[in-house]
């Protein structure tokens, strides 16, 4: 576990939790990022603007950290080739929409409100991801 970063994980997890807590208490919404995107495709009148503001804030929040820390683009390490990224992106888009959530929707909001459905979804996508990584790294040796 050489790469384990517990302190930054605690702080980051707290910030993500506060984000979903404020969205729930202030606006009454329990949605993750894929749900926020799905609600824009197509946009519904009166329920679209806040989603765009959220996504803009999401990029700005990471941008602020990037500027503050001086991190460059090399912070992001990609194992995947471009064709894999396109396939993985399409699968992520289709899968989160059909499955009704992603890591934030099911994993944080859903488990946070003790939904068995979200726990099942989260265990399913972690298992599927682990299988793919196992095949890539330990069978194919990419």
């Amino acid at each position: 576990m050489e790469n384990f970063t517990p302190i930054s994980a605690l702080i980051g997890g707290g910030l993500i939790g506060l984000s979903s807590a404020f969205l729930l208490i202030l606006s009454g919404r329990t949605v993750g990022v894929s749900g926020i995107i799905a609600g824009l495709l197509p946009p519904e009148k009166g329920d679209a603007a806040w989603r765009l503001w959220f996504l803009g804030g999401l990029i700005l929040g990471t941008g602020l950290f990037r500027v503050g820390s001086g991190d460059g683009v090399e912070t992001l390490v990609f194992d995947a080739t471009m064709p894999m990224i396109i396939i993985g992106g399409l699968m992520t888009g289709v899968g989160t929409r059909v499955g009704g959530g992603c890591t934030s929707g099911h994993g944080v909001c859903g488990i946070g409100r003790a939904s068995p459905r979200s726990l099942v979804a989260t265990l399913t996508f972690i298992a599927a991801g682990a299988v793919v990584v196992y095949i890539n790294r330990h069978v194919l040796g990419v």
Partner: protein
Amino acid sequence: MIRNMIGFGTGVLFGLGLAVSHMVDPGKVLGFLDFAGDWDPSLLIVMGVAVVVTFIAYRMAKGRSTPVFAELFQWPTKTAITDPRLLGGSAVFGAGWGLVGYCPGPGISSLAYFAPQTMVFVTSVVVGSGLAGFIPKARIPVVSGTP
């Protein structure tokens, strides 16, 4: 207006959290999914802490009749856990997640790094989600009897 500001503020908090915890780095996320390799449990800590904070907020919400700035709490209504859409969709998403190391949140937030891979990933997610929005729900068989 106030709802847009809440959206913006919660977005900033979320984006900061993802960056602080290094979840914007696909390599870090793949390290979590690599249980047979040099396993990195950081993602589990991030998710665990976020779940605890959300759970407290959920309990607070249960004690209120309405949210502070909206007319009602919008809770998800589905409860079936043997729903093929839930399981199939989550499995497809998980496989895509394992292929790249990105889920939708970090994908979008790390657009701030201007990596071409990120832009290609986010475009693919939007196309995939948009296309899936056209899949008629009736065409996917629902085995469980729950409506």
